């Protein structure tokens, strides 16, 4: 029997894990006023992995994304993003780190006084060193990815809910970030539009293999993502052959009362014996 690891070995292993992971939560807790939202949660998102986070409304799903972005600070615990401890970083340093992360907000959060072009190009325009021609080319490229090239001169108020989400995806991917965070991208949309959005997320996942955290309360969205792949030849999402796994690892994380009660793949989730999970997925 091997000897138990020493403290130095444990710390080296933890450091190695942090390097392979793009996001690491270590014993993170946060409360808003007297309401505890997350209570000592730990998980990690590995490079190239897509992780779907489930939980009922108010379970703290969106808070996890805001914590990962450094938009809110935890009361205790550590959060490492791309190897940096975001819990101790200044806002100025966080602005630099956030340039490597794309986020799609729950209600799109498009700037309503800017056109679609200006919204999608916002990050490039803020960098101040990208030429106008280059900005135009990349805006067209990002909008073509979400199939909304014709909306370039429109304002967000002129778009439907689904189109706004697609523009938000284009804005998030324009700089090809290392991490993508999706906050309920299909929330409040009809089933057909939801499928279009999920198809875009699958396309992004399989084409660019970006590490992603997806917050959702719609189990079917995540199961579609786990059971489908994007076919570049037909430009369509297709079901994976029975028993096959996709190119990109897809895992699930379930939150309940501020704690993680499940962290594993689709097969483990489907065969979980936890009553709450069984009820949730039924």
């Amino acid at each position, binding site marked *: 029997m091997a000897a138990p690891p020493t403290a130095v070995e444990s710390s080296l292993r933890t450091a190695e894990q942090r390097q392979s992971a793009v996001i690491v939560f270590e014993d993170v807790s946060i409360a808003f006023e007297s309401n505890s939202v997350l209570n000592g949660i730990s998980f990690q998102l590995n490079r190239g992995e897509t992780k779907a986070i489930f939980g009922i409304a108010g379970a703290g799903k969106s808070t996890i994304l805001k914590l990962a972005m450094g938009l809110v600070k935890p009361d205790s615990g550590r959060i490492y993003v791309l190897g940096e401890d975001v819990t101790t970083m200044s806002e100025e340093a966080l602005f630099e780190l956030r340039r490597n992360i794309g986020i799609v907000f729950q209600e799109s*959060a498009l700037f309503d006084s800017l056109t679609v072009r200006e919204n999608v190009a916002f990050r490039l325009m803020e960098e101040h060193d990208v030429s106008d021609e280059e900005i135009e080319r990349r805006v067209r490229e990002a909008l073509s990815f979400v199939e909304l090239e014709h909306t370039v001169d429109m304002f967000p108020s002129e778009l439907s809910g689904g189109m706004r989400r697609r523009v938000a995806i284009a804005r998030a991917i324009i700089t090809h970030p290392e991490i993508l965070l999706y906050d309920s991208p299909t929330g409040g949309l009809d089933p057909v539009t939801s499928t279009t959005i999920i198809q875009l997320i699958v396309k992004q996942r399989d084409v660019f293999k970006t590490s992603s955290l997806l917050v959702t309360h719609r189990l079917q969205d995540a199961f579609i993502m786990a059971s489908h792949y994007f076919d570049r030849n037909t430009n369509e999402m297709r079901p994976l052959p029975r028993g096959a796994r996709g190119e990109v690892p897809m895992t699930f994380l379930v939150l309940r009362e501020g704690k993680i009660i499940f962290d594993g793949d689709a097969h483990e989730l489907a065969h979980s014996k936890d009553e709450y999970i069984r009820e949730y997925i039924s």
Partner: protein
Amino acid sequence: MELTSPTDFAKDIVQSVQDYSLLAGRSLANLFRHPRYFADMIQQADLIGVGSLPIVVLTGTFTGAVLALNSAHTLERFGSLSLIGQLVSVGMVTELGPVLTGLMVAGRNSSGMASEIGSMVVTEQIDAMRALGTDPTKKLVTPRVISTVFMLFFLTIISDFVGLVGGGIVATLMFRIDAHQYWSSAWQVLVFQDVFTGLMKPVLFGFIIATVGCYYGISARGGTQGVGRATTQAVVASSVLIIAVDFFATRLILSVFGYR
């Protein structure tokens, strides 16, 4: 309605003062940090300055006119109607021009800033801006502060001038005072202290209007109702602060330069 304990109430006030001071300080410190948003400053200057011009001109003209009307009756009793130009001039330049222009711009722009930024907060646009690597205080607050200070300075000069014109119209048409005499006495009575007082106040008031408007906007919580509340609070707080700061600034200047 839930009652707040006195301790929590006091803590909230201290917290608000601290947050406001930090925001106000950062809005100035951003001037020395990159990037600087000159295009946004010009856009805001247009909205605040050119947009406020009609109300400032109307307010200034009628204030000067009513000042001349009221003072003329008193001066007439002492046979000193020729001093009307002096009264209108000192009153407009040192006090009424800066304060009324400040209050007008506060009513129009402090509320506008609070509602615009507040709406961006409740629709997560501010979070989106931070997530996209842009500092909202640099992009939204500093351009508004600089533009308001700059434009209020010139709006006050315009207000002073049109106030004198309004007073001049009343003096010449209603009290038959010679226009040349009116303008000479209005011009000659002004000393450095008056002009300095009159031009220092809009700088302070402009800073108050923009920082208070932006502070209430950024602190807005609770959806559209919260935005409405923030807008009202911004107008009330900036107006009260303008009048309070006007007293202390006048007292300070008088203690530095002495009475006329």
